[in-house]
């Protein structure tokens, strides 16, 4: 019999959690009159006899809480809503509760956690259930029960124990069947393989050599589910980037060209050229080969950086999806080379408006809920891991309703050598043992790799969702960094998409084969089939190659530091990917077929110029009121609500924070940290993203994203000779099909974005060192199809030689001169201004990299010399927004003359204020450095005004009349009001 423990706040104390939930419910159900809500923690102990003393000591803080065992704690409520996890879903609180009880009782007592919300409100059961569904529980992963007080008094405990699993076994399937049957097999098993690929597998299975080798292992001519699943995972879009590696026929007007692999041509190809041209000044160390890119930091340390996306899971379970996103990307730098210490996170989220007020399509969560869930998931993942979140941004567009984008990035630092070996090189010898360390395997995340390679549809598997556990992972990283320095392993990689199948499959290429014993990995619960053990994406696991002579020391340290590790096989040189289960061979695939047998896609891309004409740009009746309205727009407004909830200074090396200025609330351009506390060398990280321009031309979208990331980097003082970037493409399905009639255009959009990345990274000599693509960001259910705008995130990482030269965006002193760097053209296509007027526009900002790079180099020199008081880039919303932000962040007024702004062609005041021309920066300079600035920049810098003590932003138009005269406090208020949740 199970016991149910309720813990809740003492009646006279303020219930902060209850109040917060009350606010959330009020927002979703403004018409409901809530008298009160009380939040209880529930612990269900699946054991007949328990000791109340143990429970009280483990679960209850007697200063502020009361506890009740097998009886209701409270009586004064109308509805009792209990939310617990479904069987098999990761329950971190339950695990900690079990551990605490175990410390006290020295006994193993299974504990499951839940929350109860006691609502006081005169509402019907149906309303209570709606509140539960829409505010409190995600029924995909959680079980939710609603009781009235009489029912609650007699409720039975809810014990989400995993039971009734089919006994584990493996199946064989005959692939010698019709094409339709092959396709149906792929669909029913979420394999995401197309007919050509299935046929390649069929041909492999029918090869007489293959058949005879299989026969020796006791396998029939049929393929096992273990093999088929391993192939589908390895060949998934998620893992193999089939579209980026496809042969593409690209047509643009009368011009047609053949592209053999976008990745090799534009990404890898351009980076190779940059490295060659840089010669001895090349900073790349290991690129495109490992889990993350590696560049030099100084003579003793290298930097490691990776950005991932976790879009599909975040659509279904925003909290778990985002949490797994961040702790998942943590394992990429951690699993690069010999393993890096993690030094910061950066996050970029793309959502639909949280104020969306129309009817939601089926299976879609409200964007506000996605926003809050993702925010909290990344908060828990980042903060609890002790990694500062130093940079990021939020982008809003209605088309992220179907799939939100959740970009999570992590950088690490590692010594150039570990022992006497270079740390960025992985090495595995035949005979090295395969060790899995960290969490246990469950059914969580099965088919994540293949699921995320499809659009979100009616039958999307819910098992693909998983919940991360940052503390298990922290224990794991604490242990493995020590094991690394003791030389206890030879190679390490993470278990992410595809689980062991992917991690061991890839590591095995270094030795030439592997044999995995699928009985060996520890399981969360019994009943997993061997293919599930191989494919599970259960979190917090690393795979390692441990030399036999070190395995004893490795296992001893692991046990001592509270980490579970298991030897699950051996690396071989047989050329085979070999799995056994219960003494029998269940998979026996040629490594070469597994990794290189995938047929290349052959695709067509046809570019059609959007051909949007510039309409007249309307002038607002009141420029001041318009500026305030612009400041409040979702893509411009303050993101302090989120930023404050992320720890951005743990590890002690914070230099430029995400919030800067006199009141610590101005929007920083980029992050700067000192990873080595006894050194003044710093790491700079920035990002750029411009999906609004994709509707016009993805070529310029990509150029602007890169330029934005670079100018943000430059604005804080980053060194232009020591930088690199990451590309993260999130696209809507670019493959033509019946359901996707404009696939060829979307592929052309992808080609053009790649062409721009190649051209502009070369122009800036900023190599791409790693990246990722996510290609099926569509939602198709019933008649509704929602595709995201093609979105490219560019993240720049690099170095500032001495952090004491870093600059922030806020103006500093009255009397400083304001300069604009760069020219303003009539480029409002895709701008925030035209979006605010609901108008299309044609002229998208174009980047002139040659001029821009010269400007950035001069600015870097001026920053290094200490001439620059502040620097802020002009991006979303243009010059008007930039000036307002600089003013209120610095707490000073500005007096600006728009007539002085250098333009290309004749522009109206409105156009000058809101054009989004690229590569422009506004700086402020103390009067004593004006001569140096003017000598250095020449005509590229133009003084447009000065800072004042009036605390007003005063802008004079081109006809010498004051067009804006606003109190900076009111501007800041407008900027902060939108997301003041």
């Amino acid at each position, binding site marked *: 019999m199970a016991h149910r423990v309720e813990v809740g706040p003492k009646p006279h104390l303020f219930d902060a959690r209850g109040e917060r939930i009350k606010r959330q419910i009020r927002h979703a159900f403004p018409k409901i009159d809530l008298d009160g809500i009380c939040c209880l923690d529930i612990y269900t102990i699946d054991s007949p006899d328990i000791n109340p003393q143990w429970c009280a000591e*483990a679960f209850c803080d007697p200063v502020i809480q009361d506890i009740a065992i097998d009886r209701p704690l409270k009586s004064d409520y109308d509805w009792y809503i209990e939310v617990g996890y479904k069987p098999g879903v990761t329950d971190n609180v339950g695990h900690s509760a079990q551990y605490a009880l175990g410390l006290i009782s020295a006994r193993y007592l299974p504990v499951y956690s839940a929350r109860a919300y006691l609502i006081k409100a005169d509402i019907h059961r149906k309303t209570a259930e709606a509140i539960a569904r829409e505010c409190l529980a995600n029924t995909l992963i959680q079980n939710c029960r609603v009781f009235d007080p009489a029912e609650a008094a007699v409720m039975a405990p809810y014990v989400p124990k995993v039971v009734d699993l089919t006994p584990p076994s493996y199946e064989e399937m005959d692939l010698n069947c019709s094409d339709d049957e092959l396709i149906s097999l792929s669909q029913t098993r979420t394999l995401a393989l197309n007919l050509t690929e299935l046929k390649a597998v069929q041909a492999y299975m029918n090869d007489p050599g293959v058949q005879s080798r299989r026969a020796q292992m006791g396998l029939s001519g049929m393929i096992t589910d273990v093999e088929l699943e391993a192939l589908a995972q390895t060949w998934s879009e998620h893992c193999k980037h089939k579209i980026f590696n496809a042969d593409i026929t690209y047509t643009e007007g009368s011009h047609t060209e053949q592209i053999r692999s976008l990745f090799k041509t534009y990404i890898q190809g351009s980076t190779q050229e940059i490295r060659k041209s840089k010669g001895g000044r090349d900073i790349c160390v290991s690129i495109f080969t490992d889990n993350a890119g590696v560049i030099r930091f100084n003579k003793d340390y290298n930097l490691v950086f990776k950005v991932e996306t976790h879009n599909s899971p975040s659509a279904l379970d925003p909290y778990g999806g985002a949490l797994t996103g961040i702790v998942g990307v943590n394992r990429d730098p951690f699993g690069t080379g010999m393993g890096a210490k993690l030094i910061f996170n950066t996050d970029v989220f793309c959502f639909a408006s949280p104020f969306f007020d129309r009817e939601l399509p089926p299976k879609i969560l409200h964007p506000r809920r996605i926003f809050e869930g993702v925010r909290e998931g990344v908060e828990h993942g980042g903060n*609890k891991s002790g990694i500062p979140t130093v940079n990021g941004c939020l982008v809003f567009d209605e088309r992220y309703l179907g799939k939100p984008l959740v970009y999570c990035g992590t950088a690490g630092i590692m010594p150039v050598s570990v022992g006497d070996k270079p740390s960025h090189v992985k090495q595995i010898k035949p005979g090295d043992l395969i060790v899995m360390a960290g969490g246990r395997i469950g059914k969580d995340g099965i088919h994540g790799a293949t699921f995320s390679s499809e659009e979100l549809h009616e039958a999307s598997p819910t098992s693909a969702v998983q919940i991360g556990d940052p503390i298990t992972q*922290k224990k794991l990283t*604490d242990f493995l960094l020590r094991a690394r320095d003791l030389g206890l392993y030879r190679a390490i990689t993470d278990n992410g998409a595809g689980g062991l199948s992917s991690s061991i499959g890839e590591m095995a290429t270094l030795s030439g084969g592997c044999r995995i014993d699928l009985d060996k990995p520890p399981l969360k619960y019994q009943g997993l089939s061997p293919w599930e053990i191989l494919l599970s994406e259960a979190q917090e696991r690393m795979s390692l190659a441990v030399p036999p002579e070190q395995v004893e020391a490795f296992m001893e340290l692991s046990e*001592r530091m509270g980490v579970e590790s298991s030897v699950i096989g051996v690396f071989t040189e047989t050329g085979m990917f070999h799995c056994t289960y219960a003494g029998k061979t269940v998979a026996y695939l040629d490594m070469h077929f597994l990794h290189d047998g995938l047929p290349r896609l052959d695709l067509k891309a046809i570019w059609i110029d959007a051909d949007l004409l510039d309409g007249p740009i309307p002038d607002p009746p009141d420029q001041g009121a318009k500026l305030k309205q612009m400041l409040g727009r979702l893509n411009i407004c303050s993101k302090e609500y989120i930023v404050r909830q992320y*720890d951005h200074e*743990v590890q002690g090396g914070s230099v430029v924070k995400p919030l800067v200025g006199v009141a610590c609330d101005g929007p920083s351009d980029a992050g700067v940290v000192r990873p080595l*506390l006894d050194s003044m060398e710093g790491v700079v990280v920035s990002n750029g993203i411009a999906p609004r321009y994709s509707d016009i031309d993805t070529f310029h979208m990509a150029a602007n994203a890169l330029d934005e990331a670079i100018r943000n980097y430059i604005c804080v003082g980053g060194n232009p000779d020591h930088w690199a970037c990451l590309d993260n493409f999130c696209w809507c399905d670019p493959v033509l099909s019946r359901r996707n009639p404009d696939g060829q255009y979307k592929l052309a959009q992808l080609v053009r974005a790649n062409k721009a990345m190649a051209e502009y990274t070369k122009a800036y000599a900023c190599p791409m060192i790693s990246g990722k693509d996510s290609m099926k960001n569509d939602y198709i259910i019933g008649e509704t199809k929602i595709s995201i705008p093609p979105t490219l995130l560019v993240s720049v990482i690099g170095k500032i030689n001495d952090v004491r030269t870093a600059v922030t965006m806020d103006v500093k002193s009255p009397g400083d001169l304001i300069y604009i760097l760069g020219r303003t053209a009539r480029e409002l296509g895709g701008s925030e201004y035209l979006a605010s007027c609901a108008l299309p526009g044609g002229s998208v900002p174009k980047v002139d990299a040659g001029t821009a790079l010269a400007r950035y180099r001069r600015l870097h020199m001026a920053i290094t010399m200490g001439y620059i008081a502040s620097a802020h880039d002009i991006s979303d919303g243009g010059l008007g927004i930039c000036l307002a932000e600089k003013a209120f962040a610095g707490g000073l007024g500005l007096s600006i003359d728009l007539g002085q702004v250098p333009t290309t062609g004749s522009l109206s005041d409105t156009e000058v204020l809101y054009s989004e021309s690229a590569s422009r920066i506004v700086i402020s300079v103390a009067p004593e450095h004006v001569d140096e600035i003017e000598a250095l920049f020449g005509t590229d810098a133009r003084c447009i005004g000065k800072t004042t003590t009036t605390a007003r932003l005063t802008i004079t138009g081109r006809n010498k009349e004051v067009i804006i005269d606003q109190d900076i406090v009111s501007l800041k208020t407008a900027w902060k009001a939108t997301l003041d949740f």
Partner: protein
Amino acid sequence: MAHPVKALVITGYGTNCETEMAYACTHAGAQATIAHLSDILNGQIRIGNYHFLNLPGGFLDGDDLGSAQVESVRLKHATIQGGTRTLYDEILSFFERGGLILGVCNGFQALVKTGLLPGNPFGARRATLTFNDSARFEDRWVALKVNPHSPCVFTKGLDRISLPVRHGEGKFITDSEDTLKDIMGNHLSALFYADADGHPTQTYPDNPNGSAFAIAGICDATGRVFGLMPHPEAYTHATNHPLWTRRKDLPERGDGMAIFDNAVSYLKGV
């Protein structure tokens, strides 16, 4: 030459500020060792061999049952290998031999929940740190006022300092009015959240969590055990300060160093 001050910084199970804490100890002139809790539990490292015990911030066991709740159970029940002594016994002996104990954020929560603060008697939980009134984790810098009458060894000679807070559960509450009187009356309240004029405040966000009497940190009656929610180890250098690009007058050594400098000076008998 004075004997070296040996500082022990405990980590493991979710602690995450150990590196900067050890750096601050070293920067203050101590010899710092970072030990995983498992190193202490298996007897490899003895707390008794050190002078200055540091419990850094983090999320021990994910704060899953409330901040540092599981840690308080671990300290009281986990025994050192080969004996029956608990971590708590070791820490108490360490204190009785004259050692200094500093708990920051999650470390402060652990000291309070284990009954090492405010003490009198040690081992009884007389106070706690719970959810901020905002019910949010927040990272923000706060102004702090030092209680000049406090016996606290760590805040000696200080008046007003700036440090960041980074917590979701920092609201200080006592079990009774008597405990609060004991803390306030005996000046165990060493550190207060202050407004711009340096006065203790209940106003958000100067007081970021709603702590009673604006309490940001407390000590025991000897002043040798000190816990605080703000992070002194996060302000070791001028460039940590959020306004450093605006205020060129900031000393290179951050305010947080004074806490560690005081500890080391005390142990050196200076």
